[in-house]
């Protein structure tokens, strides 16, 4: 098919179509709806052979998706923000069933105040559920990640659901050229799913998702999920190798941008990484040895790759597009945990930026690089800094005035 101009949502729908998914339970929510609308239209037009059911809520939707996945059919669903939280109970439950469901989350800030722009408190809320997480920077990556997600989830060494994340608006509604391979090539990468542990066959009845009473039993099942998730790091490498061979695009659990000789490193995720890369380029032009590490796989957390990539760096600034209220950046804490026992660990600075889709301006990136060099000189690392500009503060003052807060 070659390259097409596609939104992130369109790219996700194409991934689902070419993965030849059998069943899609759906429930609409901005900015995700375009995915399920596109799939629904293809099914209605006969371009895609799958069952599509609109559910009464995300809670039912995730339940239906997990249950269908447990019968051995390839299943997909998608949601965003409040929808993901509404299905939250079943996210944990379905992960425990050990079924290879693939979902897309289109990131959107959480209420309150209710909003539409992206940040990652929604996807990170399900961080500990057992779902593997792949976070995307480009529309191409959304398409590619869905194919990779099924291959990863369906592997016997893993058998955990995978959620692919993209930013609302910045990817979901943004069109970029996306390479769409033909279905034969996709089949050679991702053949039909042959379930071995969870399927529906009248001749071979089984009960799934049973209750256990007693911590020794519960601990066993939970820790097995953890081990399976850790396995996914190795399996992911194989999947990436296979993917590169078939499609020519190379992925790793982390992306290293101008990182090799870098001394000052930004750590980012998702679509705002593009802005970070541009900032790194500008900093390099000014003579600062800057680089960027993008976390693509968030679960399992790629500790070995990160430790290796950040060895000997002077300072690392984590830009969290999320806020753990009362603590700070979620990924900062994860990075600190990852690096704490390293002998030559870099200084680790924390910034909160892009909440609700707020832009991160070139000056805000310069501010981060300044803070890194200053921290290196003084050895003092300040508490998390919210990236915010004077002009934005003035706009906020205007809004407060209109709201009668003066």
């Amino acid at each position: 098919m070659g390259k097409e101009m596609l939104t992130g949502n369109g790219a996700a729908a194409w991934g689902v179509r070419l993965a030849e998914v059998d069943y899609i339970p759906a429930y609409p929510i901005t900015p995700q709806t375009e995915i399920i609308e596109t799939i629904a239209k293809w099914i209605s037009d006969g371009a895609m052979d799958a069952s599509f059911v609109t559910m009464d809520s995300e809670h039912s939707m995730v339940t239906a998706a997990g249950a269908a996945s447990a019968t051995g059919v390839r299943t997909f669903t998608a949601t965003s923000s409040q929808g993901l939280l509404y299905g939250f109970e079943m996210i944990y439950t379905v992960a425990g069933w050990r079924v290879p469901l693939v979902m897309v989350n289109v990131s959107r800030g959480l209420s309150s105040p209710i909003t539409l722009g992206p940040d990652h408190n929604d996807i990170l809320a399900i961080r500990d559920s057992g779902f593997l997480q792949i976070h995307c920077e480009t529309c191409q990556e959304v398409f590619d990640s869905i194919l990779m997600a099924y291959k990863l989830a369906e592997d016997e060494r893993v058998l955990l659901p995978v959620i692919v994340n993209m930013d609302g608006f910045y990817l979901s509604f943004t069109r970029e050229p996306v390479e769409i391979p033909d279905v034969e090539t996709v089949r050679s990468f991702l053949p039909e799913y042959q379930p071995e542990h969870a399927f529906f066959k009248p001749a071979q009845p089984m009960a799934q998702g049973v209750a256990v009473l007693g911590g020794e039993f519960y601990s066993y099942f939970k820790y097995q999920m953890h081990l399976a998730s850790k396995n996914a790091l190795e399996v992911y490498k194989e999947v990436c190798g296979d993917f590169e061979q078939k499609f020519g695009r190379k992925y790793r659990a982390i992306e290293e941008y101008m990182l090799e000789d870098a001394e000052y490193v930004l750590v980012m995720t998702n679509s705002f990484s593009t802005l970070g890369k541009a900032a790194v380029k500008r900093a390099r032009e000014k003579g600062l040895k800057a680089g960027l590490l993008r976390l693509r796989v968030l679960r399992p957390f790629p500790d070995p790759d990160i430790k290796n990539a950040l060895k000997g760096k002077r300072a690392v600034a984590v830009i969290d597009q999320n806020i753990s209220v009362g603590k700070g950046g979620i990924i900062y804490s994860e990075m600190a945990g990852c690096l704490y026992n390293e002998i030559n660990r870099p200084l680790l600075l924390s910034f909160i930026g892009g909440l609700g889709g707020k832009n991160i301006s070139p000056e805000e990136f310069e501010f981060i690089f300044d803070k890194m060099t200053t921290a290196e000189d003084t050895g003092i690392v300040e508490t998390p800094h919210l990236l915010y500009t004077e002009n934005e503060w003035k706009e906020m003052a205007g809004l407060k005035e209109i709201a009668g807060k003066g």
Partner: protein
Amino acid sequence: MLRLRFHGRGGQGAKVASRVLGTAAFLDGYNVQDFPLYGAEKRGAPITAFTRISRENIMERGVISDPDIVIVIDETLLSDPKAMPLSGLKKGGVVFVNTPQSPLETQERYSITDHVITLDLTKIGLDMIGKPVLSSLAAAVASRIAGIGEDALRDALEKELSGIISDRGILEKNAEAALYCYDAVVPVQMKTTEAIREGENVINIPFETARVSSPAINATGNTPLRRTGNWRVFRPIWDYDLCTRCMTCVARCPEGCIQVNEDGYPYADYENCKGCLICARECPVKAINDVREMHSQSEEGEL
């Protein structure tokens, strides 16, 4: 890199225009990114859409704050303090305005010092397509100004519109009208200089009490201050010789914009009437006519 920003109202076609241009540039061999921005969707509310066109990789995302080219699909947005279509336009940039007025008149009326191109897209849409459909026409104008080839535009129109217009006849009318607009615009040699950014100051924000910092509004409602009369393409006008004072239009107006005068005849609040023309369609004796609104010549245009 060329950065284009489209300004229109929800339903006018700014998003589709940015996509047709994006696809045309893509077919012409460029790297492209296009992106619409609207809040909670609402017909008539100001929306923006963006297209980035580059020979190099595009290392930007999100809104374009320093466009080379601004396409104003709805003239009334030029006087809207929230839309501000000209903000950030680079020196040497180009402004296109959909208006019956000349570039000079438009420059004077809105105090624009940049290069202005005008064309009455609404009239062309009405004459050639039969509806005030503007997406393909605005895309054609933008393609011409951005230097995208006619063949690429033609293919892009086919590709983008065939997915949303099922009637082949209407699709062809769209393409015909678009190519007419493409030819009607005189290409400009554009030389923009990179905008000199006003450096942003990064600050620490202080604690404020919940009385200030909770998302609650303490002021009384201000929605009535937001006039919607300038959304109209057509103005409903009553013919009192035919009107039977049956009140159907009053009952059917979804905005409550039709009132009754002392003699019992209905009249519209033109400051807020959005021009949906449900009144005209519902009128049992066809006493309501629609007249094309010329905002640049009317006082409501100033609202």
